[in-house]
């Protein structure tokens, strides 16, 4: 497993401030962030009371807008539509140069990671803004998968270790994790980093980790009883078993696995860190519907892994919930691009001696689409804010946003294609890339219907 360069971070200092766990209502970014990193004026979030009916902050702060501008500028320079299309057809569908600029140079992979673990100590609000821009550009980088899903899962593992002694020292990886009572419970081969060290590695952007689950895996509402059959455990740990201290099995449809250094593999109720650079791990690219977020099949044959948590169910739930909630911001970015591009096109495209955008039939469709994006923005901001503040309504907010925004992104891409007419159907025009991403996103991390079922449970609207 790749580890952070020793020069970038010292040993993590968990527990320095009285043993507090990394908190999603994070302190403001320090001036120690990279120059291009985001500012943050949301330090007051700590003091915000958690009420039964909290008032979410649905606006963008000035710092969030500044962050957006920086990311958009970078993507304009490094990620135009033609380049995205060309790369999606190449053998290297991920863009390592762009990832380095975003994740390593700007430090954006560490937005959700607390400062004492080498991250930016920002929140889901800033992460959501980055995802809006990545969605708008269809940037082929493993941001959602590594900087959100895998990072959240690891944060979930560390959060469960409140009472564990803080790991200190400059080379703590193996030693610290051996201190965990469960780490070697089933005799696994321990050769990886414990969650804090892995988080630090992810925060630098030099290590990419991917949660080894099918992309369509959905969060399960926390109040849903998995039942005597343990359906929920099976769903997440399906297909991988621990045998003789090594991992065996096959997980298909894992997004961005080809870009990963580390796989976070659920098996049973546990979660294991698996270095991809070993003989027991095979990653086979699949022919993906959305080639800008390519899927792969992961095969583990006596693969060595490190047990990160014996019971990772809540960590996985946390990751999938944050992923679904923040995916809404990516979907908003997709919808926004489609709308803007189509409005521009219909203003310039002439038929019948008029711009086609002057025809009421088209105007009404675009006006409705605009209204949908306005609504999706409120839902996505609400989810980001609820996740950032650790609101008791975070699950509801995430499922609400995902149930709404996934349809808006698909609708926007479909309208973009239709209103572009013939050119919209061509391979050379980028609209099909957005359609494919939007459609794939509508399945990723739970369909709208799945999330509406979650809403039904949370809102007390049970079925017949």
């Amino acid at each position, binding site marked *: 497993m790749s580890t952070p360069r020793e020069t970038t971070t010292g040993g993590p200092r968990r527990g320095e401030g009285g043993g507090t766990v990394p908190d999603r209502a994070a302190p403001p970014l320090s001036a120690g962030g990279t120059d291009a990193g985001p500012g943050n004026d949301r330090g007051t979030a700590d003091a915000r009371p958690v009420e039964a*009916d909290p*008032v*979410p*902050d*649905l*606006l963008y702060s000035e710092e969030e807008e500044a962050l957006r501008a920086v990311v958009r500028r970078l993507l304009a320079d490094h990620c135009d539509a033609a380049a995205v299309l060309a790369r999606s057809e190449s053998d290297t569908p991920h863009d390592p140069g762009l990832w380095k600029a975003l994740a390593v140079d700007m430090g954006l992979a560490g937005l959700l990671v607390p400062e004492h673990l080498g991250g930016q100590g920002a929140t889901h609000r800033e992460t959501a803004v980055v995802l809006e821009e990545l969605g708008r550009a269809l940037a082929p980088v493993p941001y959602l998968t590594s900087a959100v899903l895998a990072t959240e899962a690891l944060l979930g593992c560390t959060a469960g270790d409140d009472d564990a002694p803080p790991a200190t020292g400059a080379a703590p990886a193996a030693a610290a994790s051996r201190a965990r009572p469960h780490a070697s419970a089933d005799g696994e081969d321990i050769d990886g980093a414990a969650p804090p060290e892995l988080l630090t590695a992810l925060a630098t952007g030099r290590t990419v980790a991917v949660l080894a689950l099918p992309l369509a895996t959905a969060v399960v509402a926390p109040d849903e009883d998995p039942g005597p059959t343990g359906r929920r455990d099976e769903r997440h740990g399906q297909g991988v078993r621990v045998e003789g201290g090594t991992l065996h099995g096959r997980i298909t449809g894992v997004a961005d696995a080809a870009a990963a250094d580390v796989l976070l593999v659920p098996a049973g109720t546990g979660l294991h860190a698996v270095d991809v650079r070993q003989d027991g791990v095979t990653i086979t690219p699949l022919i993906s519907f959305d080639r800008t977020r390519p899927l792969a099949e992961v095969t583990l044959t006596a693969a060595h892994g490190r047990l990160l948590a014996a019971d990772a169910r809540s960590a996985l739930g946390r990751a999938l919930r944050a992923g679904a909630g923040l995916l809404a911001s990516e979907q908003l970015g997709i919808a926004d691009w489609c709308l803007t591009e189509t*409005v521009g096109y*219909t*203003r310039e495209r002439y038929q019948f001696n*008029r*711009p086609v*955008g*002057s*025809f*009421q039939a*088209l*105007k*009404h469709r*675009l*006006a*409705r689409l*605009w*209204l949908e994006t*306005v*609504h*999706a*923005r*409120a*839902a996505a*901001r*609400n989810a980001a804010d609820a996740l950032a503040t650790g609101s008791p309504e975070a699950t509801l907010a995430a499922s*609400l946003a995902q*149930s*709404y925004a996934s349809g808006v992104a698909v609708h926007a891409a479909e309208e973009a294609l239709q209103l572009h007419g013939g050119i919209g159907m061509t391979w050379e025009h980028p609209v099909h890339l957005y359609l494919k991403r939007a459609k794939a996103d509508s399945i990723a991390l739970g369909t709208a*219907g799945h999330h*509406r*079922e979650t*809403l*039904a449970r949370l*809102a*007390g*609207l049970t*079925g*017949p």
Partner: protein
Amino acid sequence: MIDAAELRRRTRELLATCPPATADRATFLRARFDAGLAWVHYPEGLGGLGAPRALQAVVDAELTAAGAPDNDPRRIGIGLGMAAPTILAFGSEEQKKRFLRPLWTGEEVWCQLFSEPGAGSDLAALGTRAVRVADGTDEGAGVGTGGGAGDGAGAVLGGEGAGPAGGGSRGAEECAGPDTGDGGWIVNGQKVWTSSAHLARWAILVARTDPGVPKHRGITYFICDMTAPGVEVRPLRQITGEAEFNEVFLTDVRIPDAHRLGPVGEGWKVAQTTLMNERVSIGGSRVPREGGMIGPLVNTWRERPELRTHDLHQRLLTLWAEAEVARLTGERLRQQLAAGQPGPEGSGMKLAFARLNQEISALEVELLGQEGLLYDDWTMRRPELVDFTGREAGYRYLRAKGNSIEGGTSEILLNIIAERVLGLPAEPRTDKDVAWKDLAR
């Protein structure tokens, strides 16, 4: 400069000199107006202090805490939201002094005489005629004397024969301006969808004063005395059975020139101020989850498990989520306004709620099944306020149909968003350079 502390001081002074516990409601409201605490952003002497609009909340909070009566703004919304800003922007000093105080206190209710049977979405095509009267010859003057091009109006107004012209109007007696010299105007026409007309003392009125020029240029804006002879208000019964609105017939109605707002022929520009304020008034306060039309539906769903089906469940959840997202969108708009960053999002809210109200109430009727075949009351009634929750599902379903028509149809609002927010080109126009009298109708 008036700041929050100063406003608080003045509010307490008002409460001390005119204690709500002992003063009657009208006296207190007049005193509040005279203290400049009615609408603090209005000028001094007209109920305000020229303070920032946001500071009104300071005054309102103090007065609410003291248990002071308010002016029942829901009842006089047209006066407060539409007539007042127009009078403030275009009225003479006399007009402002005469009209704003009783308007604000609610002693004089206002209505809006804009829409006509032949001019709905295309308001500028309105055909109600106002003809200037020659000096000193008020009686019997009027129809057809407005100059060469004037006769076209009759065709539109159809059947509005000149009724018996009354004597001098009571409005004229009360008006600040002289009733002599230029003899004023004689108005003939029909207006429709006029809420509060049966309660109103005054109306804002747009009428055609020059049929010979393109439609937007021949309109003049007036204040019309609703008690004047020739003003006839008839209830207009709607599909719900009740008569929330009215149609207003104007037959040789005399309006003194002192009751004209803005220059002759510039009524369209004046009306823009009115209509802009109509759209601004959406927004307001926070709505709780399941507030609005979704509330009765989910209550029925929770209380009546025997009505549930899988199909209804899927549709219910979709609408619940959409209603919640719309609520958050309204909340986001509210936060934008509070932060001084008004966005174009407001223009979409009415559209969104019209569709949601219609779909939610439709599902509610269907959910009720056999009971949905009944209706609570077809009696012709005249409600003062629209009350969605006091009636049953069938009423909600029928009343919500009006949400996509009143205050700008959804189709017109989509045009406005497309052209003003998205910057899409306008449709080619065939009516711009044609005299009103020559328009197809």
